[in-house]
């Protein structure tokens, strides 16, 4: 290349780069548009799936409850299984809907002053029959001096329910599952720290990031043993982050798992919990 050609060559190179840049920007915009369409499709289809499921479950409950005549015990067992399957499917559809809303930034918080012990109590009650069925021991420890926190009770319950459900799912019969809550951070930025732990199968450290990714289950065979959309922890992370908190885990393969999440107190929290 001669000195005379150099500016021309540079100009032509610059022009090629600009053109590539525009093409890349166009592709990104197109992909974002398609991703938004996919998210909207997920939200729409999840909503539409609920209607026939509602009909299936309600018709089956009419039969189970003997409204159209008494069933034999085996008929009742069979219909009860239809209802359980339907409710399981409904839960998964709900999870996809929540994920789609989260991906589209359509999830909003409705915070109130809540006592974490109440939320944990509710989630515990919902899971007690499963714990008993698997022969697990569930213990709950909530520090006495935790002040109420400004947070969305339904969404915190969703996160807790997901973590506790996983803990129960991935812990063999006879194992231990626990939930604890305490206040941490004394440097003027206090948070609520909640732990959900289990003595179950554990997760290898190299998979710790993977579990929070959408549609991921660490072991492909796990999806055959443990039902789920693979969205639970992705949604849990989204809901915790919406509150300004973070979520992580400590675990080794074969040594159980401990999931932690924090919810920061907004402004100065009350120094002491009001009398119960």
């Amino acid at each position, binding site marked *: 290349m001669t000195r005379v050609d150099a500016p021309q060559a540079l100009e032509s190179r610059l022009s090629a780069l600009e053109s590539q840049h525009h093409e890349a920007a166009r592709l990104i915009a197109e992909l974002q548009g398609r991703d938004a369409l996919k998210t909207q499709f997920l939200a729409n289809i999840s909503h539409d799936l609920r*209607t026939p499921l*509602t*009909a299936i479950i*309600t*018709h089956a*409950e009419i039969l189970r409850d003997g*409204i159209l005549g008494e069933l034999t015990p085996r008929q009742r067992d069979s219909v009860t299984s239809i209802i359980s399957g339907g409710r399981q499917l409904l839960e998964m559809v709900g999870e996809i809907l929540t994920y789609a809303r989260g991906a589209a930034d359509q999830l909003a918080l*409705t915070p109130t002053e809540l006592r974490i012990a109440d939320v944990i109590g509710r989630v515990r009650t919902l899971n007690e029959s499963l714990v008993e069925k698997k022969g697990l021991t569930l213990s709950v420890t909530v520090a006495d001096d935790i002040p109420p926190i400004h947070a969305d009770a339904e969404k915190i319950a969703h996160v807790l329910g997901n973590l506790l459900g996983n803990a129960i799912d991935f812990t063999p019969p006879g194992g231990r599952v626990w939930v604890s809550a305490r206040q941490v951070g004394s440097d003027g930025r206090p948070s609520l720290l909640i732990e959900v732990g289990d003595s179950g199968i554990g997760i290898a450290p190299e998979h710790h990031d993977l579990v929070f990714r959408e549609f991921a289950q660490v072991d492909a065979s796990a999806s055959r043993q443990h039902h789920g959309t693979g969205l639970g922890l992705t949604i849990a992370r989204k809901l915790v982050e919406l509150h300004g908190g973070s979520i992580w885990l400590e675990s080794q393969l074969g040594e159980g798992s401990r999931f932690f999440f924090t919810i920061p107190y907004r402004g100065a929290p009350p120094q002491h919990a009001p009398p119960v």
Partner: protein
Amino acid sequence: MPPDDARTADVAPTWTPPAPPLVLLVEDSALVASALRILFEETGRRVRVAPDVAAAVAACADEPPALMLLDLTLPDGDGLSALAGARARGAAPRVTVAMTGHDDPGTRQRCLAAGCADVLVKPVPARELLRRAAEWLG
């Protein structure tokens, strides 16, 4: 026939049993409506089904129901506009309850503000729905 007996026959009121309470199901899914119809008819209520807002307002104008169970997403608009439409015609249901798949607090507040007595997330367990209906229709 002696006069006395005739007089008695003239003044005796003709007693007809009160009609069972009317439940109006505003629901565009025929499958869901059929389940709810069985549930209420088998427990002694009369049932009418309206698949959209216009049919719901017309049904209320024809006979205001004791209970209107209202789906929120209807082919011709927001379910709550059926309640507003019935009120505008002076034919409001005695009790209106929203039944919806949207379980977010915003939807709940919107329904209560519009005059619904309660907001239930579908599918409401059959027994639970009957227990609550007994309270609303009580």
